[in-house]
């Protein structure tokens, strides 16, 4: 009755779940199958509580994959009911997880890869940085956050490559957007590939930079998500396409979450949004 993907539904055991900063937690899960199968850039849906509340699982990127220990690490920000409940879950408890989901980053094209992370978007970059270093690919890391406290895993990145940091308040590094050190770097050095995750304005700015510079880039996108498996079309993101409208929607959960910077559209032309559709919900 069950088929292959049903094995993505797994029971993980919480190894650790503690705050890094007041509203950002570090969750370590014992989940050997997930740890052995997942690729950097993929994600997992976590059922934070048994029963019907909250209704949906929560998607989280994979911060670190420790295949030897059979563990995966997640960094999450407490932003609502689901993540709030998750903070109360204790080591030793079980969590139902669904994953790995999505496509993940692809390192193939790079000898020297730039990793650009903003805020919580820093989280999935550590896994890909560790993989890159294992494959003898040089990484150059650009991190930006509200304050120094939110420069997640800065020390870990520093073990892997050159790291540039900026903050919104100037508490650590320059008071600037993360695009600034990246652009400065690119003035006299080269990157073969850029992998990025962060707030949409950051990714939009980055897409502009890589287009001008002719650098390939992969962006990990975020969207409110429903099923996580590609069926409900809830997590749509506009991408360029040869449709009459010039774009189409792809599913962040299934076609992504990693997309080529050249294909992503950060906003949809106003005149076409109007004829969009209906709110009957049956759609």
């Amino acid at each position, binding site marked *: *009755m*069950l*088929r*292959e*993907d*049903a094995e*993505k*539904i797994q029971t993980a055991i919480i190894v650790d779940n503690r705050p890094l900063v007041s509203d950002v937690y570090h969750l370590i899960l014992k989940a050997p199958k997930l740890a052995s199968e997942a690729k950097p850039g993929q994600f997992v849906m976590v059922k934070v509580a048994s029963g*019907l*509340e*909250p*209704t*949906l*699982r929560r998607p989280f990127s994979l911060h670190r994959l420790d295949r030897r220990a059979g563990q995966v690490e997640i960094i999450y920000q407490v932003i609502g*009911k*689901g993540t709030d409940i998750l903070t109360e879950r204790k080591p030793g408890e079980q969590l139902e997880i*669904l994953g790995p989901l999505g496509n993940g980053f692809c390192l193939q094209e790079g000898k020297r890869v730039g990793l650009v992370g903003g805020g919580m978007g820093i989280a999935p970059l550590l896994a890909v940085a560790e993989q890159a270093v294992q494959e003898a690919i040089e990484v150059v890391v650009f991190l930006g956050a509200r304050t120094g406290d939110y420069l997640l895993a800065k020390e870990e990145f520093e073990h892997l490559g050159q790291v540039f940091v900026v903050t919104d308040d100037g508490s650590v590094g320059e008071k600037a957007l993360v695009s600034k050190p990246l652009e400065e770097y690119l003035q006299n050095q080269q990157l073969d590939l850029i992998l990025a995750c962060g707030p949409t304005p950051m990714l939009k700015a980055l897409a502009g930079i890589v287009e001008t510079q002719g650098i390939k880039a992969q962006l990990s996108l975020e*969207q*409110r*998500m*429903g*099923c996580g*498996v*590609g*069926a*409900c*079309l*809830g*997590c*749509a*993101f*506009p991408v360029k396409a040869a*449709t009459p*409208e010039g*774009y*189409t*929607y792809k599913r962040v959960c*299934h076609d992504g979450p990693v997309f080529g910077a050249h294909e992503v559209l950060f906003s*949809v032309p106003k005149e*076409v*949004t109007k004829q*969009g*559709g*209906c*709110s*009957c*919900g*049956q*759609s």
Partner: protein
Amino acid sequence: MGKVDLQVQLGPLKLKNPVLTMSGTFGFGQEYGQYYDLSALGGIIVKAMTAQPRLGNPPPRIAETPGGILNAIGLQNPGVDVAIAEELPPLQDLRCQGTLVIGNVSGYSFDEYCTVTKKLSYSGLVDAIELNISCPNVKGGGLAFGTHPDTVYKVVSGVRAVCDVPLIVKLSPNVTDITEIAFSAAKAGADILSLINTLSGMAINAKTRRPILSNITGGLSGPAVKPVALKMVHQVSQAMDIPLIGVGGIVSGMDAAEFLLAGATAVGVGTANLMDPLGALKVVQGLERFLEEQEVASVSELIGGLIVCL
């Protein structure tokens, strides 16, 4: 599988079990078919199809609310021609195994409903057609087809004339009297009614002072709407004699049993698919287990079996 008989006769349709997956929550079955053998289901109602491809609404399209979700996907679909050429053929094997494949038709005009129905009906690729007349965005000034008895009659009778397969009409709960709409749909030739579609609602982020959905409003579904759905199924089943598909917040076999008792012959699972990829399968298994525990030999015995002491 056990000894209980799960088969039901839903008007002209024979179902191996009463559990259907609802349109919009199950795509064209492809994704969930990687998780389990879909022949475990009574039937699949596939994604709504329109005459032309539809991009759907800009994101955000989905918001979680207490006990449910609010969505405004906006009928994103490849259009009926592509669906017939690419999406429906892979499902034909299921039909050989007795799992029904049901097309869902949506439209923005009377003509569009008829065009899409005709193409689907003549394609031979579906066992039945479900008509989504619960969509507020229609040509001619926003009169929703599904909320006025006269327009319901007009569109259902128009579609009926070009539909060679059993016709299911999906009713909106966003009406004053659902029985009035049900009567119109039945009079116009609907074989079966499915109810309820989502409840119109909205969600607001107080910090940003903005609606969460780009569409501002959306459709509420999930366990939160179950009491409303049960009441409406009961109400329609009391008022008239037409087979019903009960839909609204079903996540367990027990939930399904409640709808059958209220008067439904089959049930639809929607939001539960989003909560758990095995959601609909668990409803089938849970219903079978419930019947065994209750020592009910056939699921048909539950239909309309609600005991009301006056």
